[in-house]
C-alpha cells in the first residue's frame, strides 16, 4: 500500500452511509454550530457527482430551493454529517449529472430506479 492510501486509512473513519450513487435522492443531516448551540439541518436533493477517494472523497447534492438551484458539496469523512438517508434510487446513464444544471421544472426530474439488482 502506498503512503497516501496508508494515511487515508489511518485518518478517515469509515462512513456508515447507505450505498448511494449519482442520481439518487438523499437527505443529508448536517450539524450546524450557532454560538455554543448545535442543531441539525437537513439538505435534501439529488446526488449529481461523487468524486475523489480516501479522505478527500466528496459528493455533491443539488436541489431547487425557492426556484433557485443550490448545490452543496459534502466530504464523506466530514464529522459534521450526522446522517445520510437514501430516499429514492435514480435511473441515470452517467456518473456526473451536470446536465441537470441547464434544466428546470419537470425536465430536471430523475426517473426512479424501481428494480434494484441484488
Amino acid at each position, binding site marked *: 500500500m502506498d*503512503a*497516501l492510501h496508508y494515511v*487515508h486509512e489511518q*485518518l478517515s473513519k469509515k462512513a456508515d452511509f447507505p450505498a448511494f450513487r449519482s442520481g439518487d435522492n438523499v437527505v443529508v443531516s448536517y450539524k450546524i*454550530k450557532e454560538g455554543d448551540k448545535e442543531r441539525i439541518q437537513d439538505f435534501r436533493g439529488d446526488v449529481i457527482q461523487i468524486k475523489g477517494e480516501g479522505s478527500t472523497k466528496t459528493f455533491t447534492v443539488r436541489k431547487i430551493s425557492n426556484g433557485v438551484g443550490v448545490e452543496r458539496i459534502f466530504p464523506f469523512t466530514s*464529522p*459534521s454529517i450526522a446522517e445520510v438517508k437514501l430516499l429514492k434510487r435514480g435511473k441515470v446513464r452517467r456518473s456526473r449529472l451536470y446536465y441537470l444544471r441547464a434544466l428546470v421544472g419537470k425536465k430536471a426530474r430523475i426517473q426512479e430506479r424501481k428494480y434494484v439488482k441484488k
Partner: protein
Amino acid sequence: MNGLIGKKIGMTNIFDQNGRNIACTIVEVGPCVVTQVKTREEDGYSALQLGFGEAKLKNTSKAQQGHFEKAGTGPKQKLVEFRDFNIVEKSIGEVIKVEEVFAVGDMVDAIGTTKGKGFQGVVKRHGFSGVNDATHGQHNRQRAPGSIGASSFPSRVFKGMRMAGRTGGDRVKVRKLRVLNIFPERNLILIKGAIPGHKGGLVIIQK
C-alpha cells in the same frame, strides 16, 4: 538547526475538532543516516551531516563511496548538513527517525525546490496585472510588460528589471508550518498547508 531530509508524498485533508477541513501535506521524513559529525574543535562549528534515500552505486563517485563507507552505509541520494543539531546525540553511522526529532504540534520550516514552469511571461512570473482592456487599440498586448524604463536619460535598462524568463525550480522555504500528525511506523509526517515542489521531490523539514 534540527531537521531531517524527506520526500514529498502528496496532499490530503483532515478535519480538526471544530469540524473545519484542513489541507495538509504528507511527507516521508527519514530515516536519515549520520554520515559525518562536525565538531567545533575540528571543523570550527558543530553540525551533523545526514544522508537520505538510496542511490545507485554506479551513480556515486569514488570519493563519495569512501565517504559513505566510513559511515558504514550504502550510497545516499541526498546529503544535508544541519548546524548545531542538539535534539539527539548521535555518532557517525547511526540512524535518526522521525519521532526522535518531531512531535505533534511542532512548528517546522519546509525547504524544497518549486515546480519548474519553463519560460513564462511577466504576468505569471512577477504578478504583473497585464493590460486590463481587450479593446481600445490593444490588439495583442494583453499580457505585455509595458514600459521598461525612460528614454535618452538613462539610455539603458536598469539592472534587475523584472522581465519574462525561466520560472520555478527555485529553492523556497516555507516557514512556521504546524505538524498535525506523525506515523512513525511508515516514517510519515502530516504538515499543515502546502510545501514547495512536486510529489516525490526532496524536501528538508527543520525546526
